[in-house]
């Protein structure tokens, strides 16, 4: 078996230094604590919606729905991403993080954990059942908004830590192109910091003063526009670190090379440019935004197809060339040579397969009038469960199986590998059944984010019930998988035998020239600013100058 042999070899690089490993692990474990709670909430939700259980009177569907969304989509992802990027930056810049990066890293962790606790406490107290999109004029406790702000600011500090490492590396290696992983990490944070500015403005200048009662009303349209200004790039913030694992780590795991250094960087620059000026495609069915502006955002959204196609090509080019080098012949013989029993490859590969229908569904969602068929139906829930919940999550799981033992100085054992394979299969089957049921029901008009209901036994709604039960069954499998995952990761953190696990970082086969312009940040940040002003400048000015009468706060739960 490929994996067994590799683990017995000495690892080809210095392990990550203790101080950086501890920081990274601290982020990753907060991520998985949130993941565990979120998985429990998600399973309960599925069972309620499937009509299988009823919740006790001290809680309700929308409270656990808020918990699931906030903990999974905001806390699990953000903490894991920050921890993963810190570890990879340390690994590719000599094995450690310097003082400034560590200080930023820990300051960010403290802010993010404080923010998370504030949000979780308000949700548990039922003071914030506003879902993770917190649309005004539903008004949560001010502490919920303050907690969210701390989470965002903490992630900025983590980003500054990565920038500091990057600057230090550039100073020590004048004239050289930065390591691919670091470049991608920096691009991800540049995108993230720009994209979180509008939601910070929404939270600080609209939601917090209004929720404290300092101002009587809020501009609803502006708050929604600022939210989706952030809300769509948020999904690229989840996706880009998964792409980092696909571009940089997986080629090494299968014994191959990075397909093309320049192309990988170009794909990330495209993601930086076209993630942000696209938010209106989440608001296609809203009044108050003209059809012309909506179309501009739709076109900018669809351009993301290009870096996605580049990524798909690169991945399969790496798989094929590596498989052929190992003796695979014929049209598909190379497929047999891939390490199918190595969970470090298998889990993210299954994720990639989910991403194919996920991408196709995304094009439907973003397409102007077709959106009317599926907007706010449970199709959308199905869509982001196969994208972030499968493609991204399975990649993060696959990364965790080697990242955690690499950080704790333990071994990814054969048994842990095998359990990981089982866990991946459970996740994939559960997600397949659940999202298939969701997509199907959504096409028939079943709404998302809705407690169990038959709409007074209306025949249309009764037609959804069988699918809802399939959805609940899929959710059950996902929960089993989540529990298994937590157990495996606890084992890898505390109990697995001491030893070395490789932190896989692939390189290009031959030295490749990379166009210098790819690292000229003022050019790219300038272009991002230009695209944002083009897409948002006029509409936001309009929304401020010709605003609808404001809304007072409501608590309807």
């Amino acid at each position, binding site marked *: 078996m490929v994996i067994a042999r590799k683990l017995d070899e000495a690892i080809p690089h210095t392990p990550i230094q203790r101080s950086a490993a501890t920081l990274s692990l601290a982020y990753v474990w907060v991520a998985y604590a949130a993941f565990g709670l979120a998985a429990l909430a998600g399973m309960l939700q599925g069972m309620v919606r499937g009509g299988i259980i009823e919740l006790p009177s001290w809680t309700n569907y929308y409270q656990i729905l808020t918990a699931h969304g906030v903990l999974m989509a905001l806390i699990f992802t953000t903490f894991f991403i920050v921890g993963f990027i810190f570890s990879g930056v340390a690994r590719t810049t000599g094995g450690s993080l310097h003082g400034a990066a560590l200080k930023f890293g820990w300051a960010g962790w403290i802010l993010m954990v404080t923010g998370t606790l504030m949000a979780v406490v308000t949700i548990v107290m039922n003071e914030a059942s506003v879902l993770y999109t917190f649309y005004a004029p539903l008004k949560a406790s001010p502490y919920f908004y303050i907690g969210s702000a701390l989470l965002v600011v903490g992630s900025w500090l983590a980003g500054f830590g990565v920038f500091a490492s990057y600057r230090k590396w550039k100073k020590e290696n004048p004239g050289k192109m930065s390591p691919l992983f670091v470049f991608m990490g920096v691009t991800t944070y540049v995108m993230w910091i720009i994209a979180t500015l509008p939601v910070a403005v929404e939270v600080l200048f609209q939601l917090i003063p209004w929720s404290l009662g300092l101002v009587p009303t809020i501009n609803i349209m502006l708050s929604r526009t600022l939210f989706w200004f952030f809300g769509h790039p948020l999904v690229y913030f989840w996706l880009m670190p998964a792409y980092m694992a696909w571009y940089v780590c997986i080629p090494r795991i299968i014994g191959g090379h990075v397909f093309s250094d320049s192309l990988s960087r170009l794909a990330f620059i495209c993601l930086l440019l076209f993630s942000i000026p696209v938010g209106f495609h989440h608001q296609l069915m809203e009044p108050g935004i003209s059809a012309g502006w*909506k179309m501009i955002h739709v076109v900018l959204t669809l351009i993301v197809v290009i870096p996605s196609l580049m990524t798909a090509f690169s991945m399969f*080019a790496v798989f094929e060339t590596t498989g052929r080098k190992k003796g695979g012949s014929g049209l598909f013989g190379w497929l047999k040579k891939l390490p199918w029993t190595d969970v470090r490859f298998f889990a993210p590969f299954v994720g990639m397969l989910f991403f194919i229908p996920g991408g196709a569904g995304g094009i439907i969602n973003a397409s102007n*009038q077709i959106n009317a068929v599926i907007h706010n139906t449970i199709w959308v829930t199905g869509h982001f469960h196969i994208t972030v919940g499968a493609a991204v999550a399975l990649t993060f799981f696959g990364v965790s199986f080697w990242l955690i033992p690499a950080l704790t100085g333990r071994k990814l054992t054969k048994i842990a590998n095998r359990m990981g394979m089982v866990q991946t299969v459970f996740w994939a089957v559960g997600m397949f059944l659940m999202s298939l049921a969701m997509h199907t029901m959504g096409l*028939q008009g079943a709404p998302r984010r809705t407690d169990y209901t038959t709409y007074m036994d209306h025949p249309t709604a009764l037609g959804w019930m069988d699918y809802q039960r399939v959805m609940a069954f899929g959710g059950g499998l996902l929960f089993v998988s989540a529990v298994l995952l937590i157990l495996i990761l606890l084992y890898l953190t505390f109990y697995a035998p001491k030893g070395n696990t490789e932190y896989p970082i692939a390189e290009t086969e031959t030295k*490749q020239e990379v166009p210098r312009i790819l690292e000229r940040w003022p050019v790219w940040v300038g272009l991002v600013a230009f695209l944002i002003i083009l897409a948002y400048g006029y509409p936001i000015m309009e929304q401020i100058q010709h605003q609808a009468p404001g*809304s007072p706060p409501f608590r309807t*739960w």
Partner: protein
Amino acid sequence: MHLHRYEKIWLMLGAGGLALFIVLLCVNAFAMGMAPPSNMEMIDPEKVMETPPFDKPGLKQVGDKEYDAYMTAFAFGFSPTKMEVPAGSTINFHVTSPDVVHGFQIPETNINFMVLPGHISSATHTFDKPGEYLILCNEYCGAGHQVMATTIIVK
């Protein structure tokens, strides 16, 4: 920057397909008049109940088999609660909210839009097939969101 020949072909096919798709979307939206609902009218959300025509929500016949439906969506219901039209009727929906954000969706049709306080949403549909159509709220609006629905009868 070097690109592999197959990759060039792959990206050109992808970009070409994408360009064609975008052109079709634009033709659909602007030449064939199928843009998403984007009404720009506004209203004071705190005065919906006293602002005509939303002070008396209901159907108004405006032509042969054509109606204007002025409706309010509120936590947790729609007004008016009963509407009836003959088969083949066209209804122009005009909906607003006096409280939080709601959704307005009629499964089995393409009627699906957001209802924002401060704004009036509009969309049009012709009901050819008789039946009892479900109207539901598809945006979370509070504890009773799942009961927020009504029907429209087409005879």
